[in-house]
């Protein structure tokens, strides 16, 4: 969430789910198929629309289910989000609908930003996005005349070569309208996996320690080397999208992978395969023999969420207790125990050359229970300082920052003041997607998930009911295109990109625009990631999953 960190100094969802869904007058949902990806939030948006007449503007290239509830649907072409947003803001400014007081008191960089918006008059924005000028005007007016508006987005915004700029533009929009730091407003990126937020909070990123303390800061390095009794590197590490190619290039010799499945989840599967093949030593800690498992040298059986204790942090920064319901299956062990065992063996390895001062306050690995790990987190991650198991066990839940044992947590961020002081407007220009359709690859492919499956499908394909109700991959294609490629009766298609090819059943539907197809990555036999393009956003290093060029042919089934 590099974009929000730039604009406000903190990258997380600014408001809480309850707050947004109860108080927003308008929902602006862009790049989020909310009812399928975050169903309970989707449910609550539908409730708000039906029960209290909240307005809903959906911006999505697809006719997603939420569109049935929308006041307006801006069906922009894939990858044109930034032009759409700049176009809307141009109209807002031209009509003097901006929140002048908020801009003057709480932001900086407005003039530069304003200058860039000059490049996006309605006819230009309309030309790029395919959304009519009238509709753009109507949407801008709705946004400007109904406060508060909550902006909600997900991977449809970030998984682009200019994903960070898309996020900055959304931050711009919310500052322009003065929708930050107030109930029912805010910037609300919905995080995908159940504990993405927590993994980021805990330093599972190459540039930050727990609680976003930068690795490049001498001060932070000193703090952690004193705590852990070892020298810290101040060099930003590699992202997953860099590490895997680095394995092929020989810079990465070993990968320790805990409960991730890069073969399914990363872009350009065929390339990922050759990278993992080349890696000298791979440890995989998993609950199943996943698609990545054939590339591992050691498999360590971890346990599911039901067999261990700990905490998860949800998309609204809420920390909740995970309680153990089952004894571990067979000899499988909780991941925290496995890591502790490995760490203690590294620590005591007599020939190891890296010296650790085990007298340092948090150098040791003596954990008997996750609550002891949380105590260490309390000491080292300021936003988690007051997260105590005793509180959680009493039924308390709270949203970070939780500053001390008595602090109630923080439902809304940026009230009165941004983490970085003033909110920063960013002047960002639209750039077309990295790979656009051409004569040989005339379709745009966009990827994502469906309600009944999850991510690489590792779990949901192993759930009997979910597999029964959605048993095979489907590729969404518009009726006009289906006719054009001669899909009469034959229900299978072959989809080919510059990187690979898959075959699957077609679902002829006007959920997609003509010229566009949509596929998921839940099934190894036809995963969209065989086709996707590993073009990265230069700042976030997120691949452009949402746009690549493909060819589509009907095949005999």
């Amino acid at each position: 969430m590099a974009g929000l960190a730039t604009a406000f100094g903190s990258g997380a969802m600014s408001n809480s789910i309850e707050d947004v869904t109860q108080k927003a007058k308008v929902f602006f949902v862009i790049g989020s198929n909310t009812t399928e990806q975050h169903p309970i939030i989707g449910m609550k948006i539908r409730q708000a629309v039906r029960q209290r007449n909240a307005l809903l503007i959906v911006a999505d290239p697809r006719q997603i289910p939420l569109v049935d509830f929308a006041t307006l649907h801006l069906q922009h072409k894939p990858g044109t989000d930034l032009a759409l947003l700049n176009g809307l803001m141009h109209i807002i400014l031209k009509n003097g609908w901006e929140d002048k007081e908020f801009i003057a008191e709480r932001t900086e960089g407005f003039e530069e930003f304003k200058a860039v918006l000059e490049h996006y008059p309605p006819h230009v924005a309309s030309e790029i996005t395919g959304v009519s000028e009238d509709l753009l005007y109507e949407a801008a007016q709705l946004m400007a005349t109904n406060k508060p508006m909550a902006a909600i987005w997900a991977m449809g915004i970030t998984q682009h070569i200019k994903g960070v700029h898309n996020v900055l533009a959304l931050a711009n929009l919310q500052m322009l309208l003065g929708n930050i730091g107030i109930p029912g407003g805010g910037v609300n990126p919905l995080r995908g996996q159940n504990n993405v937020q927590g993994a980021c909070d805990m330093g599972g990123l190459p540039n930050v320690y727990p609680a976003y303390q930068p690795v490049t800061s001498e001060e932070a390095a000193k703090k952690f080397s004193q705590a852990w009794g070892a020298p810290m590197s101040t060099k930003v590490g590699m992202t997953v999208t860099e590490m895997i190619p680095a394995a092929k290039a020989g810079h990465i010799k070993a990968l320790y992978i805990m409960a991730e499945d890069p073969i399914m989840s990363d872009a350009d599967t065929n390339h990922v395969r050759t990278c993992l093949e080349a890696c000298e030593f791979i440890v995989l800690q998993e609950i199943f023999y996943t698609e990545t498992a054939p590339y591992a040298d050691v498999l360590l059986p971890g346990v599911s969420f039901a067999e261990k204790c700990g905490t998860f942090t949800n998309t609204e920064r809420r920390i909740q207790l995970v309680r153990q319901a089952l004894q571990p299956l067979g000899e499988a062990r909780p991941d925290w125990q496995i890591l502790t065992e490995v760490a203690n063996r590294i620590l005591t390895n007599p020939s190891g050359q890296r010296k650790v001062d085990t007298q340092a306050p948090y150098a040791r690995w003596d954990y008997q229970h996750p609550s002891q790990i949380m105590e260490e987190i309390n000491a080292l991650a300021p936003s988690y300082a007051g997260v105590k198991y005793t509180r959680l066990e009493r039924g308390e839940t709270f949203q970070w920052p939780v500053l001390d044992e008595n602090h109630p947590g923080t439902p809304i961020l940026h009230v009165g003041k941004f983490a970085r002081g003033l909110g920063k407007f960013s002047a960002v220009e639209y750039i077309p997607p990295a790979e656009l359709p051409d004569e040989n690859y005339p379709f745009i492919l966009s990827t994502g998930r469906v309600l009944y499956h999850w991510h690489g499908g590792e779990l949901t394909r192993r759930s009997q009911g979910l597999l029964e109700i959605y048993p095979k991959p489907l590729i969404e294609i518009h009726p006009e295109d289906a006719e054009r490629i001669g899909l009469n009766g034959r229900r299978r298609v072959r989809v080919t990109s510059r990187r690979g090819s898959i075959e699957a059943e077609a679902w002829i539907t006007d959920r997609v625009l003509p010229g566009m197809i949509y596929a998921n990555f839940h099934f190894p036999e036809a995963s969209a990631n065989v086709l996707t393009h590993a073009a990265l956003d230069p700042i976030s290093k997120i691949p452009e999953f949402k746009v690549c060029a493909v060819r589509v042919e009907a095949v005999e089934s």
Partner: protein
Amino acid sequence: MMEKATITIDGRKIQARYGQTILQAAREHGIYIPVLCDHPALPPEGACRICLVEIERQRTLQPACTFPVSEGLVIYTHSPKVIEARKFSLELLLSDHPLDCMTCEATGNCLLQDLAYEYGVTGDRYQGEKHQYPIDASNPFIVVDRNKCILCRRCVRACAYINGVEAISVFYRGFNAYIGFGADSTMQDSPCEFCGSCVEVCPTGALWPKMAIGKGRPYQLQKVQTVCAYCGVGCQIELQVRNNRIVNVVGVENAPVNQGFTCVKGRFGNDFVHHPDRLTRPRVRKYLLEGGKREGKERGEWVEVDWDTALDLVSRKLVEIRDTYGSDSIGVLTSAKCTNEENYLMNKLARQLIGTNNIDHCARL
């Protein structure tokens, strides 16, 4: 409206608010009035007449779940007249009910059964015609037994007000009335999304999770509150466990995010935990045990080993690679599916013991 009204329930004076129903005011003050069709998360329906109360100066008994409070109301929740009326309503309901509580899944978890017990109603007073609907078990998640349906419309309201899709409605009237899906077809051919909200609120055994059938009585199940492992919404769910197996999952009623409701994955998608594909013993490649090196890209055969062998090997190899090629030759992928504590440890392992910042997870993917 925040204006107060003083009302008297069973001789107790309480401060209610205008706009509240008698039932809401009573609940707020811990006064028990039995209900069947009413549910706190749903708009009132006033269909079952179980909540009838006697109100001074009202000619007839009134349903507490729909009757609005006003200044000076004097209410009796358990007068003889009220009790008689409730018994009568229950008798009628039971006259068209299978009365197979002995083998019914809902036993011990059924509001109708509880009320019959409370009012001593056995169901043998009126011998009426009984429905013989076929049981619909055609979808993978929810079994529909219309014979047990009391037409309280809780499911209809849950689908419309909670999930917002209107997949359920009541077809026909009177004795012929029954609940149906979509244009009177099956759940899977309706707009149903299998969120299970209807199951959550059904007071009887008419809608039941398929996975729980035959798996145990409520008092045989161990109940553990935890958090869903799928998406970032973070719904709290209750795992119901018997003999170390999850046999049912329900939403946690006072959970801050989901208030008792879930989506299809959180409720019906947790059986992966017991899938035969689960890895239960560590494995290493044979070449590693033989101390050899790998030839080309083929990694060769797997061998199952004990934990010590696997852990020794992992730590030895990591130290070897770290000390030969440098700390930054190792990368770790931590996990958005694991706990905070585990992610913290992975970050500590990378930074303290390996000495690298090469750590990431699939937030980008």
